[in-house]
C-alpha cells in the first residue's frame, strides 16, 4: 500500500481535439487538504470527475486507494463524497429525504441512516429545516446540505468542486468552518477553487492549473515565497496613464505587472517602495501596500489574473 490516496501520472483527458487535462502529475496523501487552483476552464472539474470515477481518462495513470477507477468504479465511488460545482440536490424531496435516499443509493440500511441523518443535520446546521423542500433553502444552506449529503456514506475522501462560488461572505465562512472540522476528523479534502483566499485558508498543499496543465505545486506559503515577493505595492494613475507610467516605475522594484486598472509592484518592503515612488516625483491617484497572495503567484506563472 502506497502512501498516497490519490496518485496521478500523466493524467490526460481529451474531448475530440480539445485537451481539457494535459498530462498532470500529483499525489494526495491521507488526511491532507489538497487544492486545485486555477481559473475557469483550467481543467479542474474534468480532473475531479476522473478522480470521482464518473469520467474516463484518455491516457496516463490514475489510482485512488490503489485502485484504477476504470476497473473499480463503484468500489472507488463508495469511498468518496462528492460535492459538485452545481448543486444537484433532489428538488422533489425534503432536506431529510435527500440525506436518507442518498444513503440508500450506497446501500446503507435504514437504522444506520436514522442516526446518521440527525448527526448530519446538526453538522450542517439544518435541524430547523429538516422537513423543508430544497427549493426553499438559501444558497449557503443548499451547499451545506450538499456537503452533508456527501458525508452520509462516511467517505475517506471528500471532493469539493468550487465549494463557495456564489455564496456571500458570511455563508463562505460558515462553510470553511465546517470543512476545517472535517479535516480535524481526518477526512482527506480535495478542493478546486478559483478563489486565492479560499485556497490559502483551506489547502495544506495545492497545484496551480492553467489550460489543462500544472504550473506549480507546493503549500500556499511556499508558492508565494517561490514565485512572488513578500509585499506588493498597487498604484493607480488612471487607465490612460498606467501603461506610460509602467515603464518609468520598472527600474524602482524587482518586477512589475501591468493590469488594465492598476500597476502591481513587487518588493520586500512596500512602504519603502512607495516613498521612493513619491521621491521620483510620481503621484499615483491611489496606492495600497499588501502582502503577496496566490493571485500574484498565478499572475507570475500565467500573466493573467485568476478571476477575469
Amino acid at each position, binding site marked *: 500500500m502506497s502512501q498516497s490516496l490519490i496518485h496521478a501520472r500523466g493524467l490526460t483527458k481529451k474531448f475530440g481535439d480539445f485537451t481539457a487535462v494535459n498530462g498532470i502529475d500529483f499525489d494526495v496523501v491521507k488526511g491532507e487538504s489538497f487544492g486545485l487552483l486555477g481559473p475557469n476552464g483550467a481543467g479542474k472539474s474534468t480532473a475531479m470527475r476522473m478522480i470521482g470515477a*464518473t469520467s474516463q481518462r484518455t491516457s496516463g495513470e490514475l489510482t485512488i486507494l490503489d485502485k484504477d477507477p476504470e476497473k473499480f*468504479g463503484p468500489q472507488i465511488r463508495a469511498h468518496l463524497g462528492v460535492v459538485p460545482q452545481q448543486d444537484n440536490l433532489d428538488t422533489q424531496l425534503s432536506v431529510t429525504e435527500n440525506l436518507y435516499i442518498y444513503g440508500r443509493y450506497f*446501500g446503507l440500511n435504514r437504522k444506520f441512516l436514522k442516526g446518521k441523518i440527525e448527526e448530519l443535520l446538526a453538522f450542517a446546521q439544518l435541524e430547523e429545516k429538516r422537513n423543508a423542500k430544497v427549493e426553499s433553502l438559501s444558497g449557503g444552506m443548499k451547499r451545506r446540505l450538499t456537503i452533508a449529503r456527501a458525508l452520509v456514506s462516511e467517505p475517506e475522501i471528500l471532493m469539493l468542486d468550487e465549494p463557495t462560488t456564489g455564496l456571500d461572505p458570511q455563508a463562505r465562512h460558515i462553510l470553511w468552518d465546517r470543512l476545517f472540522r472535517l479535516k480535524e476528523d481526518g477526512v482527506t479534502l480535495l478542493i478546486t477553487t478559483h478563489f486565492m483566499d479560499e485556497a490559502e485558508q483551506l489547502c495544506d498543499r495545492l497545484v496551480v492549473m492553467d489550460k489543462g496543465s500544472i504550473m506549480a505545486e507546493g503549500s500556499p506559503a511556499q508558492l508565494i515565497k517561490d514565485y512572488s515577493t513578500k509585499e506588493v505595492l498597487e498604484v493607480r494613475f488612471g487607465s490612460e496613464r498606467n501603461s506610460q507610467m509602467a515603464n518609468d516605475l520598472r527600474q524602482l522594484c524587482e518586477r512589475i505587472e501591468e493590469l488594465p486598472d492598476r500597476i502591481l509592484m513587487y518588493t520586500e518592503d512596500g512602504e519603502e517602495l512607495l516613498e521612493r515612488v513619491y521621491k521620483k516625483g510620481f503621484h499615483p491617484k491611489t496606492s495600497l501596500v499588501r502582502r503577496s497572495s496566490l493571485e500574484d503567484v498565478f499572475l507570475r506563472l500565467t500573466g493573467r489574473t485568476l478571476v477575469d
Partner: protein
Amino acid sequence: MILSTAVAIAEARMGMPGEKYYSGRSRAITERAYIAFKSSTWIMVFSGFVEPVLFLLSFGYGLKDLVGDITVAGQPIGYVAFIAPALLATSAMNGAIYDSTYNVYFKLRHDRIYHGMLATSLGPMDVALGEISWALLRGFSYALGFMTIVAPLGLIPSMWGILAVPAAVLIAFGFASFGMAVTSYMKSYQQLEVINVILLPMFLFSGSFYPLDVFPEWLQTVIRLFPLAHAIDLVRGLTLGNISWALVGHAMYFVVMIVIGLFFTTRRLNALFMR
C-alpha cells in the same frame, strides 16, 4: 452478516458480471421515486387512469347495441367485452409511458439528479432499472384498477383472464423500458412530442375497437410492427380464454422490447454521465 459501510457493500459485489454498470440496488431508485410521488399531485395519477374508463363507458356502452356481437375465434363476443381487454392493455401502456418519458426527460435535462445518483456506488443500469420499475408499477396499478372495474361487470368471461394482470406488468415493463431508452436520446421537448404522435394512432388502429382484419393485409402487417397490437392480442386472448401459442409470441415481443430498452438506456446513461 449485515454489511453496514458503503465500502463493504460495494466490495461485496466485486467480480460480479456487469459490476461497473449494475450494483444490484435499483430498488433505491424506485424508493426515491416513491418518496417523490407521495408528495406529488394526485390528479396526475388520476387522469391517466380515468381515460380508458371513459372510453369503455362512452364507446363500449354507446356503441354496443349498434355494433352487436363480434366474432372472435368463431365465438360471438359482446362489444364491451371485446374492447375491455384492449383498454386494459392501453392503461398499462399509458401508466408506463408517463413516468418513463416526460418525468425521465425532466430529470435528464433540467434536474441534475442523475449526476448525483451516479456519483455514488450505483451504476447506470441501477438507475435505468429503478426508473423503469417505477414506471411499470404505475402501469401495473392502472391495469389493476381497470380490472377491478371491468371484472365485476362480467367483462372477463374466462378464468384465464386472471393472467391479464401479469400480462399487463409485462406490457408496462416493455413500454417503460423502450420509452426510457427513446427519451434518453431526445434533445428537446418538441422531439418528445413524437411519442404522442405515435401513441394516439397506435391506440386507434391497433384493433382496440374492431378486429384488425377489417384492414387490408399489408396494413395489418404494418400495425403488427408496433407493440400495442401485440399487447391487445395478448390480453384479449387471456380475457376471452382463446389460449394458443400465438400468445407466447406476443409476450416474446415484449420481452425483446424490455431487453432492447434496458440495453440502450444503460448505454445512453453511461455515455451521458460516465464519459
